[in-house]
């Protein structure tokens, strides 16, 4: 507030014109007018500031609300998504469980229904066709079939059903059996006779071939070829004979050598005789019976050599 009040200014301008009371009233009215105006202006400024602040706050609030809204929206979306997911999983598991339960129940129901229908059909079939009837029918059919098979197996027809024909068939069967037995016996006898003929032929062939041979050769051939077939004897006779002759020649050569060596070394009396040692079956045979079937020359040779010892 300035130091020069309106009263002082008026006193300076018109000191003698206005009284103190007038000046006081003027000052009062002036002051009242100024105060009123200043109050109005202040009021206006405050209102303006308030309006501006309101607007600013409103804008800020709008922004804040938008931010809060968007944040809440995002959060709500997330919450909704998670709830949806959770609920969807739960619903899927519930659906699967329900499906399994329904399937299981349906399966059990189906099985029981099938069983019931099957049992009902069993009872119905049993009632409509008793088991005794079926057994009887089966037996009849079975018997008929067996009889047919027997007839075909035994060749029995209407012609064979009479007693005379049957006895004739039985007699024929007996005759066939007898003929079969006889055939078996004859075959056995035939085989025995064949065997005998074979042996006789072999003996005969051996006899023919050994005729005219010396006794030792003959005995050797009979011993070697005994029990062989006639074909075998004919084929191998000459070979066996050659082998025997070769062996005999070798033996004679050995004996001659021994005899010539012994004559030079030892001079023993002729009358002294020692017991002959028989070493082999062949030598035994050759020395036992020199007079009959054996070779006399060979025997004399052997004995002559032995008497020197």
């Amino acid at each position: 507030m300035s130091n020069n009040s309106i009263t002082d200014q008026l006193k300076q301008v018109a000191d003698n014109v206005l009284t103190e009371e007038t000046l006081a009233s003027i000052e009062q009215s002036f002051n009242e007018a100024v105060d009123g105006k200043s109050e109005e202006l202040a009021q206006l400024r405050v209102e303006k500031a308030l309006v501006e602040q309101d607007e600013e706050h409103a804008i800020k609030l709008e922004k804040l609300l938008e931010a809060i809204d968007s944040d809440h929206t995002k959060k709500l979306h997330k919450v909704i998504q998670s709830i949806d997911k959770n609920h969807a999983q739960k619903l899927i598991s519930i659906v699967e469980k329900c499906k399994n339960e329904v399937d299981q129940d349906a399966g059990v129901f189906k099985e029981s229904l099938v069983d019931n229908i099957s049992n009902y059909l069993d009872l119905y079939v049993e009632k409509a066709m008793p088991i005794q009837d079926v057994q009887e029918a089966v037996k009849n059919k079975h018997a008929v079939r067996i009889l047919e098979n027997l007839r075909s197996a035994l060749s029995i027809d209407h012609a064979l059903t009479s007693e005379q024909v049957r006895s004739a068939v039985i007699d024929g069967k007996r005759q066939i059996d007898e003929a079969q037995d006889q055939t078996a016996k004859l075959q056995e006898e035939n085989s025995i006779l064949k065997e005998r003929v074979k042996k006789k032929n072999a003996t005969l062939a051996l006899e023919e071939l050994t005729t005219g041979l010396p006794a030792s050769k003959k005995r050797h051939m009979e011993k070697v070829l005994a029990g062989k077939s006639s074909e075998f004897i004919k084929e191998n006779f000459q070979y066996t004979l050659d082998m025997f002759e070769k062996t005999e020649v070798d033996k004679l050569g050995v004996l001659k050598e021994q005899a010539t060596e012994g004559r030079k070394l030892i001079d023993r009396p002729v009358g002294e005789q020692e017991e002959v040692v028989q070493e082999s079956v062949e030598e035994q045979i050759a020395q036992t019976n020199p007079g009959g079937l054996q070779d006399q020359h060979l025997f004399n040779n052997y004995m002559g050599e032995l008497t020197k010892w």
Partner: protein
Amino acid sequence: MSNTEQNKPERKNITTFLKHLGEENYAEANKYLKKTIENKLFNKIKGVKDINIFTNEQ
């Protein structure tokens, strides 16, 4: 062989019969019902088939 395995075709026929019955396909249902009954009769005859007529057993 168990009874269930023995009646497997029979059960299948009954199931098919029920299926066709549910679909109101009565001709097919009748066919499978016939098959089931034939099967039952066959089993029944088969059960008494192995007999020896030369024995006195009843």
